[in-house]
């Protein structure tokens, strides 16, 4: 059945001044992979919390689609347990849950079965008819990457995702990472997706961009007069971006063997964070204004020459060690991992951005599994004062560091030197901190809440555009290519680091060679 065109509606004058001045239009969200972990731990809890905060339209339905043969009631029960455990707004409010759960539905089917998509279409029409929904749809692909193209093709064949037309209901598709495994596959996937969908309908999700501190980075830079004038190579010595995890492969050895940390963390999360930290002020704070500037940064990433490769790219694997007081095995001993694997669990990179603003400023990125603590941060290391007045005491004066903590404990800290009380001119580093938890006293919303709401509102600012994905893969794929050549040449000896340490010595030496050291996040 063709979706019904909604009647034109007049603006709602009573929204003036209320917390949410824009509420999405009534819609149905179809979640492919609804019986999976992401739906239970993140998506449904996020939708419930949005409902609880009255940020979703009063008429909103969720239709889960998955291989598992369960009925609506079983799906609701499973999602209730997920929301009880993971929703930000807990404990569940009985009245809110009851209204929310009433509009949760489930449809069993295979992702490559055209008949299943016909049944999905009929079920959607039935739900929309019963709830008076106007036919707006968001399709969330929480499925393995290999299913992205078949699902989108099936959506097209079932006429479930028509291209946007004024006055017609919308159809949007959210695609989870990874978007491709290299440049060729990303391009191929973009091509397949664009055969069915307009780019404006595609929302490539990177949950890091939904985090409050990542968004605050833009506010911090562009809403404060004092930082942006310093945000360049005249004042900044170097930048460190860290994405550290304590977890290992957590039973996903098979997946991680194919991915590695460069694909899993750097190509998407850390390069997105880097592009926000390094971009020029956008002309407007609209989706394409911001994404155009991020793209320029990604295109300006200098390719690492072969001669400097070993000095600018360090990869390693974790060896056995200790995390949180318990012994953990080496990567090569994890289930599903090849005993001779060359997949990296740690990577450190020295990156240059070829632009006027950043000429000569190295960006050091590192990401790893089984590091001592979970922490993601950007640390802006400023240059030393041009002349130090304080003689031998100057040894204790350290350059200023502005650290932007993305997770956990979201906040910003500025380190500077201060005179120690007393007759002597002794200098000690002190820290000025802003933390979300203590300054605002509220827990920031979950990244998925913000991103799902933005998609429903049609705002793509915090989603990744096709050209951004291809630009980041262009840069990352050259590293993979070099590693593949090394492996083919029989060079399979990766440096190792004991689990529970901050990475291999080679990574420390990379910075030491430049007279610098990694900051402890």
């Amino acid at each position: 059945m063709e979706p019904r065109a909604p009647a034109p509606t007049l603006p709602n004058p009573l929204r003036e001044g209320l917390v949410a001045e824009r509420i999405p239009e009534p819609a149905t969200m179809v979640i492919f992979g609804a019986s999976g972990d992401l739906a239970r731990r993140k998506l449904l809890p996020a939708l419930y919390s949005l409902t609880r905060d009255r940020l979703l339209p009063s008429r909103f339905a969720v239709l889960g689609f998955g291989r598992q043969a369960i009925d609506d009631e079983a799906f609701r029960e499973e999602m209730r347990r997920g929301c009880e455990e993971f929703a930000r707004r807990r404990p569940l409010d009985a009245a809110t849950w009851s209204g929310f759960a009433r509009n949760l539905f489930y449809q069993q089917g295979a992702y490559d079965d055209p008949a299943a998509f016909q049944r999905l279409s009929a079920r959607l029409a039935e739900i929309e008819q019963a709830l008076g929904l106007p036919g707006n749809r968001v399709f969330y692909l929480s499925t393995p990457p290999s299913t992205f193209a078949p699902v989108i093709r099936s959506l097209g064949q079932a006429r479930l995702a028509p291209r946007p037309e004024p006055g017609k209901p919308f159809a949007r598709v959210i695609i989870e990472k990874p978007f491709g495994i290299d440049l060729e596959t990303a391009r191929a996937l973009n091509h397949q997706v664009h055969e069915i969908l307009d780019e404006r309908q595609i929302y490539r999700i990177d949950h890091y961009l939904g985090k409050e501190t990542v968004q605050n980075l833009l506010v911090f830079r562009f809403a404060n007069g004092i930082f942006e004038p310093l945000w360049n190579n005249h004042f900044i010595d170097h930048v460190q971006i860290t994405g550290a995890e304590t977890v290992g492969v957590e039973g996903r050895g098979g997946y991680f063997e194919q991915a590695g940390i460069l694909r899993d963390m750097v190509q998407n999360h850390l390069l997105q964070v880097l592009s926000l930290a390094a971009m020029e002020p956008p002309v407007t704070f609209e989706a394409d204004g911001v994404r155009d500037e991020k793209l320029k940064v990604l295109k300006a990433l200098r390719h690492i020459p072969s001669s400097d490769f070993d000095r600018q790219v360090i990869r390693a694997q974790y060896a056995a060690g200790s995390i949180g007081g318990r012994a953990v095995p080496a990567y090569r001993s994890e289930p599903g991992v090849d005993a001779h694997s060359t997949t990296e669990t740690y990577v450190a990179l020295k990156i240059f951005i070829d632009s006027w603003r950043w000429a000569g400023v190295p960006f050091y990125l590192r990401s790893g599994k089984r590091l001592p603590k979970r922490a993601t941060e950007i640390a802006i290391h400023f240059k030393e004062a041009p002349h130090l007045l304080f003689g031998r005491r100057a040894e204790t004066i350290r350059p200023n560091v502005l650290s932007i903590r993305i997770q956990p404990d979201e906040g910003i800290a500025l380190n500077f030197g201060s005179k120690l009380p007393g007759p002597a001119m002794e200098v000690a580093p002190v820290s000025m901190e802003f933390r979300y938890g203590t300054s605002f006293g509220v827990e920031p919303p979950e990244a998925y809440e913000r991103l799902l709401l933005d998609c429903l509102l049609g705002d793509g600012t915090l989603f990744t555009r096709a050209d951004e994905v291809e630009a980041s893969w262009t840069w990352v794929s050259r590293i993979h290519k070099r590693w593949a050549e090394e492996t083919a040449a029989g060079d399979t000896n990766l440096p190792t680091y004991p689990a529970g340490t901050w990475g291999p010595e080679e990574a420390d030496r990379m910075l030491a060679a430049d007279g610098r050291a990694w900051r402890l996040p």
Partner: protein
Amino acid sequence: MSEAERARANFERFARGEPIAVEVGEIERELGSLWQQASQAGGSVVSRAVLWNLVVPTRGQAGLEKTKALCDALAPVVPVRAIALCIDDASGGSALTATIDSNVVSQPGGGRVVCCEEISLVGPPGTEAHFGAIVRALQVPGVRTATLWMDAAMPSALLARELLPATRRLIVDTASCGRPIQLRDLEALATRAYPRPVADLGWLRLESFRLLFAGLFDPPVGGGPLRHASRLTVRYRAGGDVSALLAVAWLGLLLDWKPTRAAETSDGGLRFDFERDDQGQVQAFLSPSGAACDRSAILAIELVNGRDEYAVIRTAVDQAEVRLPIAPPRTVKLDAASDAELVVAALGPRGRDPLFARSLTYAARLWSLEPRSAGSRR
């Protein structure tokens, strides 16, 4: 007791959050000294945090206790330097006395603390003449100052002459207006405070109902039915006239209704007649009830447009039923916030809602239409 012993005892009481009597002129020095001791005693740096100077004038010991409880509840959420100014009619002496106490908030795990402080000044009637100068001296520099003006028993000259010049945000509570005529006093106060934002805890209490009612007219319904509204009913808990007036004022203002007439109704409520911008007529009824309610005092808002009804009706203290013609009724949660939570909201962006001042003016205008009949609540 030696000076050192006294200082030690004071510090221990301060660390426990107990009030310590200090000389009025020595407040800042004593606070500095006590926090310094706290740093030395704890072996790590103590972070004194303050996002607002919060001035709270109040009358009597009961008011002071209430103020202190409010500040204790605020501390974990918004660190403030609270300055309580109390006129105590039962005070024996003739001079002001001062106490200071700490609010220390530990983070989970106990590793980090945020510390802020409360300063209480108490004196007999007449000592309020000193309050302005003391507040100016005690404001943490570079930090905004809000005045929480909720005690109708306080002399308004204190606010107008002494506190407003130092205030960046004024917070009031229309729920404490015993009679609707006080809306006009509040309107005058808001005018005097301009351009400082005036936040109202009563207005913030209405927000839950306003959100639900506004939600009825989100797409696909849209604002169309509002244009041809013919009847509005606001049911409220008896005594909550001010809240009900503000709710009607909110709708009248945003829907551009012009009030033309007022009359009393047989149930002890009021009826207002409005003219819509298309010259159509709207009748609004304010209907009191004895039903249970939270401090927002609103029990239901019902709007009729021809044969269609759009309504949010409280079914329990924390629940409401939402009704609109195109969908079955549904039950939703009604949020109720404590006074401390409302003060936090009032210190944030929600405390700068210009719609409140406009609604207050409109409500005062409605009240001025009320018939001067016997038994009037003026």
